């Protein structure tokens, strides 16, 4: 169950790093959750291909995970692993912009893709 423990711990660490240290506020933004809905959809497609038991690219040692695979043959631990990797990257992406506001000036002048009246 080492993978189960490590991946659950990684999620907790990433959330703790945001709440106690980075404080970007990303976890309170709608953008984060809409993005994750889209990412999750594609994660299932990509990871589904990597883990499908009919022709697996990645072979898992079932001693080290929960054995729960959903959907198809994706070990549920992979979602925790993916969440930690992707969310940590997003948090550092946000952090950099907040620390370098001048560098992001170009973004504000370009405005939203869909203009609101």
């Amino acid at each position, binding site marked *: 169950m*080492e*993978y189960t423990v*490590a991946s659950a711990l*990684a999620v907790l660490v990433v959330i703790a790093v945001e709440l106690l240290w980075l404080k970007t506020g990303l976890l309170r*933004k*709608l*953008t*984060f959750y*809409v*993005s994750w809905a*889209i*990412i999750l959809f*594609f994660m299932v497609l*990509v990871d589904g*291909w*990597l883990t499908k038991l009919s*022709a*697996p*690219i*990645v*072979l*898992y*040692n079932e001693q*080290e*995970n929960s054995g729960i695979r959903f959907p198809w043959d994706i070990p549920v631990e992979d979602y925790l692993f*993916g969440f930690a*990797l*992707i969310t*940590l*990257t*997003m948090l*550092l*992406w946000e*952090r*950099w*912009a907040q620390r*370098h506001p001048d*560098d992001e000036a*170009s*973004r504000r002048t*370009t*405005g*939203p*893709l*869909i*203009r*609101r009246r």
Partner: protein
Amino acid sequence: MGVDRFQYLILMGLCLVITLPLEFIFGARVWRRPRRLLAAMGIPLAIFVVWDVIAIARDHWSYNPEYVTGWELPFDLPVEELAFFLVIPICSLLTLEAVRRVLGRD
């Protein structure tokens, strides 16, 4: 045999190709902010490569030789895994920035 050993690498390549319109049609501006991109990716890359090396050493998972190139970095790390830790975060940041643009809010 043949193209099958490139399956994992091709999958990573497809992820990059499929997300490219987010940069150039949705105006995500991730590829065009290389310093910020590096700042975001460096630490997660280091952490997850180490995790991967440990997981391989402790037999949490392994890679099917039929679908990987066999090109390995030190500590038995398949080059495909390095590609994964480069490609997936970029795709995710492209999604985040594209969503931000479409929603028109931070």
